[in-house]
């Protein structure tokens, strides 16, 4: 058997693959956080709650309406995006211009309401959601067996990141978005409806979180607290990568997923804290983050 530093190759590649899958979720979530923060200037604590809603909606769609995975992957993000738009109009809109701290606190309050609501309605134990038939089973990659669904998640996450990047960098909508991020007042003076842009960005950002939630539903326990545990890790990732760069956020997310996977192989006790340790080291060496600009 081939071994690398005393670990069988199969175990190593297996954990790296798992790490990439986790990293894919980190990437999609920190990407959404970065986009929302860029224009709305709110660190969206509720990102994890919307992720959880995406997973729960795919479970509910199947359970009550018989809508399967392929329906859920479109419907759930749309519903959550619409809810995000309502939340932005009713709540977030009122605190623009205040210290960004209040945005963090407001969205934290939203987390409690959403998680509490789901706990009341469905209990705190988890629900099981199975992958669609087409994506069951595993393929032999030569060096290991990989469940097809996990490959699908990696592919989908990469597609989401690339598509988002293209929308932001290559379309006129994206150009407006970038302009509004840099100089909101000037952009508005050019006749672009910045408040509407902010609403839509928030909706799109949380829809991305919900999409990640649908992707996670078959491989994670679907429970009300599944999002908030994740969002704390994503916050650390965002500190490491810096919120200033959308592609930076995605790359950092993927990278840290892999590092976490490797830690599981070589020193599994530290795998839950490795991301936070790396954050502390990055803060000591490069306080602005790997891709960040020096700012507040």
């Amino acid at each position, binding site marked *: 058997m081939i071994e690398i530093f005393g670990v069988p190759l199969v175990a190593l590649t297996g954990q790296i693959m798992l790490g990439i899958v986790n990293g894919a979720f980190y990437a999609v979530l920190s990407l959404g956080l970065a986009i929302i923060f860029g224009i709305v200037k709110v*660190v969206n604590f509720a990102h994890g709650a919307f992720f959880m809603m995406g997973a729960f909606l795919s479970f509910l769609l199947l359970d009550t309406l018989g809508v399967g995975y392929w329906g859920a992957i479109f419907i759930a993000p749309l519903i959550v995006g619409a809810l995000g738009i309502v939340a932005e109009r009713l*709540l977030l809109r*009122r*605190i623009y211009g*205040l*210290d*960004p*701290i*209040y*945005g*963090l*606190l*407001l969205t*934290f*309050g*939203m*987390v*409690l*309401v*959403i*998680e*509490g*609501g*789901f*706990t*009341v309605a469905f209990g*705190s134990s988890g629900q099981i959601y199975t992958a669609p038939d087409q994506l069951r089973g595993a393929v032999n990659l030569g060096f290991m067996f990989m469940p097809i669904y996990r490959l699908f998640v990696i592919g989908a996450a990469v597609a989401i990141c690339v598509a988002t990047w293209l929308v932001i960098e290559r379309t006129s909508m994206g150009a407006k978005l970038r302009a509004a991020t840099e100089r909101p007042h000037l952009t508005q003076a050019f006749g672009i409806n910045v408040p509407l842009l902010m609403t839509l960005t928030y909706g799109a950002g949380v829809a991305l979180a919900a999409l990640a939630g649908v992707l996670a539903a078959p491989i994670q326990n679907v429970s009300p607290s599944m999002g908030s545990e994740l969002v*704390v*890790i994503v*916050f*650390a990732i*965002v*500190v490491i990568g810096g919120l200033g760069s959308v592609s930076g956020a995605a790359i950092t997310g993927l990278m840290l997923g892999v590092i976490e996977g490797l830690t599981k192989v070589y020193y599994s*006790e530290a795998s*839950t*804290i490795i*991301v*936070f*340790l790396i*954050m*502390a080291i990055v*803060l*000591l060496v490069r*306080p602005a983050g790997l891709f960040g600009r020096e700012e*507040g």
Partner: protein
Amino acid sequence: MGRALLLALGAVLLVGLILVPFYPHVIYPVFVMRVLCLALFACAFNILLGHTGILSFGHAAFFGSAAYFCGYMLKEQGLSPEIGLLTGVASAALMGAVFGALATRRSGIYLAMITLALSQLVYFLFLRLPWTHAEDGMQQIPRGVLLGVFDLRNDLTLYFVVMALTLAGLALVHRIVHSPFGEVLRAIREHEPRAKSLGFPVARYKILAFTLSAGLAGLAGSLKAIIYQVASLRDVHWSMSGDVILMTLLGGMNSVLGPALGAALISSLYHYFDALGGWVTIMVGGIFIGCVLLFRRGIVGELDAALAARRSAKVSHDEKDNENATN
């Protein structure tokens, strides 16, 4: 608020607190001790939020670690409560210095996210350490005899010791906030570059504020471990950090004792509506949203503003009267 009114209110509260253990059927003394602990926790937290303008989202780490370390000294080492309390406070203060040194390298929301992440690191450490018993938590921590005189196994003695220590802690918070040091902290909050250009070593002041705030939070956590004889993961979890933020926000972060009022209200909510389960979380979230959207000054802040408005209205009225009289 008028000084006389404030003193009268304080005196009534003090008498009320002294009477509590003699009427356990009116109000549960253990609940009052919990409120006292959390009041100290919230006021200590407010040294950072209200007076330095720093939002820490990781204060549960200080509160919970102190509870664990105090419990460790009492249960695993069989030492006396004064050693437990000192260990709790010292470990929390040290942790506060480390958190402060790391987190103050950034500011604002980044600082909040960093403290949250660091507290999650601490959470996982306590989940893993061999003597913390993971999900079960540390149970049946012996109370012992404080300084060889005060037998904390006696409920009445315990109550008065907890009352004395938390009130001393609150007095210390008051002292810190009204000292020249506290004045510098407020200068940093209002205009950091100016404080820096006046020659104050801002970074060191912030780290010291972190240390003091964490140490006092540690006193609250250690006392909590002695009262309940339990140190659990709930004490180090970020939801505890969220609770202390809410207490401070609700009570009013621009006052010294507003957070204590917030602590009393929020712990009452948890205490009396415990049976409602998830609904309590929804209510707490709703109060959070309401505080941020409607009254950011908190209850004490709004009361203060209302009283000040009335007073100034009265003053201008009086002035008008005087003018009329002279004419």
